[in-house]
Each structure stands twice: as C-alpha cells, then as structure tokens.
C-alpha cells in the first residue's frame, strides 16, 4: 500500500536528476580546474647551458650524459644528505648552568694535610 501511495514518478525524477546533476556539476568543475591549472601551473624556467660544439671523434664524457631522477630517488638523496650533514655538525652543549660541585672527602685534597701543615714536620 505504501508503495502505491508514494508519488513514484517524482521520486524517480529526484533520484535520477539529482545524481545526474551532482555528476554534471562536478564534471564542470573538473574542466574549470583543468583550464585553471593549465593557465596557473607553476613553470620553472631552467636556463639552458650554452651548447659547446663537440670535437669530431672526441670520446663522450660523463658530464654530457642526461640523468633522470624519479621523485623517490630525489627524496632518498635529500634524506641522505640531511642525515649526513646532521652527523657532520658537532652538537654543542647549549645548557649553561651553575652547578655546585661536591667532591667526596679525601686526604689527598684536604687542606688540613696540605701545604699549610708542612711546618709541623
């Protein structure tokens, strides 16, 4: 009975139109973001080194090879450098305190048996 009394045409309309519109609106946002990203994408300009013409027949040196690094490799190198430089730098004790130094009694540092009593002998 409940199923019959409900206005199913409206319910289906809300369901399909609602879900469709959520999708549509977010798809619109995707294109807006893509366009926006295309315009605003950060561009890092790398200065190209001046090309030096290689001598004909000269052996290919190590420096002329291109090196490609993945993000993970870069992160690993950065971490290794960070740890290395942390280890190299000596850490200074930065605490400055005035601490009373108490030494245990010993006849070797006693004033009674020290220089002042020499005249007794």
């Amino acid at each position: 009975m409940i199923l019959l009394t409900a206005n199913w045409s409206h319910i289906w309309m809300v369901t399909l139109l609602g879900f469709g519109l959520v999708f549509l609106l977010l798809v619109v946002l995707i294109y807006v973001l893509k366009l926006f990203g295309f315009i605003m994408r950060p561009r890092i300009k790398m200065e190209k080194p001046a090309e030096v013409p290689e001598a004909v027949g000269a052996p290919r040196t190590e420096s002329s090879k291109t090196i490609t690094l993945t993000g993970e490799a870069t992160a690993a190198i950065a971490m290794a450098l960070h740890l290395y430089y942390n280890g190299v730098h000596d850490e200074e004790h930065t605490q400055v305190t005035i601490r009373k130094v108490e030494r245990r009694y010993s006849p070797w540092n006693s004033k009674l048996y020290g220089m002042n009593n020499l005249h007794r002998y």
Partner: protein
Amino acid sequence: MKAIKYIILSLTMMLSMGIMAQEAAVLNEATAAATAEENLSVQEETAAVAEFAPVGAAEEDNVWQEMLDFFQTMGFINIDWRQLLMLCISFFLLYLAIKKQYEPLLLLPIAFGMLLTNLPGANMFHSELWTAFLDPNSPAYHSYGAILKEGGLLDVLYIGVKAGVYPCLIFIGVGAMTDFGPLIANPKSLLLGAAAQIGIFLTFLCANAFGFTEAQAGSIGIIGGADGPTSIFLTSRLAPELLGPIAIAAYSYMALVPVIQPPIMRALTTKKERAIKMKQLRAVSKTEKVVFPIMVTTVVALILPDAAPLIGCLMLGNLMKECGVVDRLSKTAQNELMNIVVIFLGLSVGATATGQSFLNIQTILILVMGIVAFGCGSAGGVLLAKLMNVFSKEKINPLIGSAGVSAVPMAARVSQTVGQEENPGNFLLMHAMGPNVAGVIGSAVAAGLLLTFLG
C-alpha cells in the same frame, strides 16, 4: 567501598521516600473527590476545633506536605521506561566516546545532550515548543520569541541548529583545516567524489519504499554522504523530527569507517588492482590554492544557489587558510570557533533524542538504511575507479574511490591502510585525499539539490 555503600543507602532512602510521596499523591487524588463534599461540614468543625488545637500540629502537617511536594518533583518519581532506556543509551554512547574514542569530539556532547534532555523535570529541552514552532495553526508558529521566553537552555542552543547556523560555522572550520592541493593537482578525483554520492540517492529510493515521506527520505539518504554537518543542515530543513537519529547514525558510521569500508573494498577489487602504484601528484602553486575557493564558490553558487551556504562557508575557511594574510582568523576558525560550535551543536542535537522521538521503529530503519547508504557510497567510488581504469592510460588504484564518501580524513586513511596491506611501498594517502575532499563538495552539492527538489 564505604562510599558506594553510602551512595546505595542514600539512593534507597530517596527512592523509598519518593514511593511514599507518590502513594500519598495517588491517595490524595483518590480521596480528594470523596472529601470535597465533606469539606464544608468538616471545615465548620475544624474551625471550631482549631481555636483550641495546639499550633505545633498544624506546622508539622505543613512540613510533611512540603516534603511530599519536594519528593514529587524529583526525577526518580516522574521517570518513565523510555527515559530510563534513553539514559542507558546515553551512558553507552559516553562509554564509546571516552573509552573507545569513537569520534569523541562530537559523540561526547551528543551523548551528554541526550542525558540532559531525558532527565525528567530538568526542563532543559521542550520538544512540544518546537512542535508548536512548526505548526501553522499555533500562535508560536515560527516564533523564536516564544522559544526564548519559555524554553530551557538546550532550546536556546537548538535555535542555532534550526536556523542552520552551526553546520555552516563548522564548515568554515573544516575549510580552514582542509588542503585542497591533491584535488587541484588531480581534478579527476571529483568524478570519484561524485560517484560516491550514489549511496545518497539509492537510500532516498529505499526510504520512500519503506513509507517515509520524500523529505524524510532525503534526510535519511544524506547519511550516505558521511558528512555530519551536511546531514544536520539538510535534516533541520527537511525533517527536523528525525534530527536526533540521523545525526547519531551519521556520526556513528563516520566513526566506524575503518570497520565498514575495508570488506567492501576488498570484495570489489583484485589483489593486482589493490597493488597499483600511482604517479606522484604535480606541485600546486599558492595562486592556484588561493583562486580555487573563490572559483568553486562562484561556479557552484551560480549553478545551485541552495548549496551556497555550505559550499560558501567551506571555501571561506579554506581561503582564510590559503591566502596567508588573515592568519589570526584562520587559527580562530580552526580552533576556538570550531570547538565552541561543536559543543553547542553536539549538545543541541543530542537534546532532540528524547524517548518519544528516538525509541521507535523509525530509528531502527534509519540506522539500517544509513549503513546501506554508506556501503553503497563506498562501493560506487570503487566501481567508478575501476571503470576509469578501462578507459584511461594512467592507472588509478580503485581503493582511493572509497574515499569519495566525505569522512575526512578517516576514509583516505583507510584507503592507505588497505593499499599497504598488498604493497607496503605504496603510498595512497595523498591520492585518496583528492576524492575525499571532492566528497565534501559532492555531498554539499547533493544536499543543495535535495533542498531544491524537496524543500
């Protein structure tokens, strides 16, 4: 042990006194009618006797009557089984919040609100005032003045929910704490956020089939968005009578994301799919992050004005965070404002869970349909990610699709955990944050649409 003994002893004494008072009250009522006729003649006699009676006896009677009156006002006397059961439920929720730490920031105030509202005689929340507030034939129809005049503390706090203020203020805080960078870097995430909203609309259909009105069905469906403030915002507009059960269902399922989602994710994906490694996201400039909230607010509010309060507040918070010139405002939105509003929202939502409104078959149906909505939403995101893999060159790990239901950042963390079970070197967290924040936008848009169609 001694303290417990004294407490039990005092409680027993209070109970026995209360029962005596109740019996006396019943006896009084029964005899009142019978004695009414005799009163005239007795009055004449007592008037004659009183001249000679000692004064102390009359005073003793007065003291005894006052004590009886006092005991009749006690909660122990007036409590009914529904309130007692609701008190037990609130104790259980407090246990979950404190001991198990299930969404304690919200569950604790909600549970305490439930405790306060179900204390008989405390008069902190009056559901009858709010019924009159919604009744066009009542003189108190849409009159906040009547609420302020006759309401208790929780009634006054509830005005913020009714006016839709608290969810929007919370969204300012959420925006100030959210990084939309992963979404800007990978705009396709928005598709996953949209797919996960299927739970809302499927549950809307189910709830209609179970005999709920369309407005109530829309409010139940929004649980599938896994977004507490959005659920409260929509329900307070469409079906305020269901606010208590819906808020509790929404926040409980958000806390249970690590339990509900992994079985669905594993069932819908293969081992190979779960182990897919995704390409690192591109860097996002500060300008992009600053312009994004302004642009989204403008686009969404122009297309769907009903979603403007939620999306606008979310993006305002985010703009304050990203622009870097209003650091104080951003910090306030993230901390003080958010915390104060959470206390008010939690207490007033918990206050709506009275025995009469909570303990019925509707609540059980809402809880069941809420979990269906949540499961369908998670499945929708995963399935769309699999579909996208068929057509696109760059493979997407389908596990990030389940993060399309909001529940920020819990759902993204679940994607990361399940992904690392298959491949410990796989870091999906930032990839999953994209669909996760897209889910927040998606559920706010879905709420705006439901408000437009059903409001």
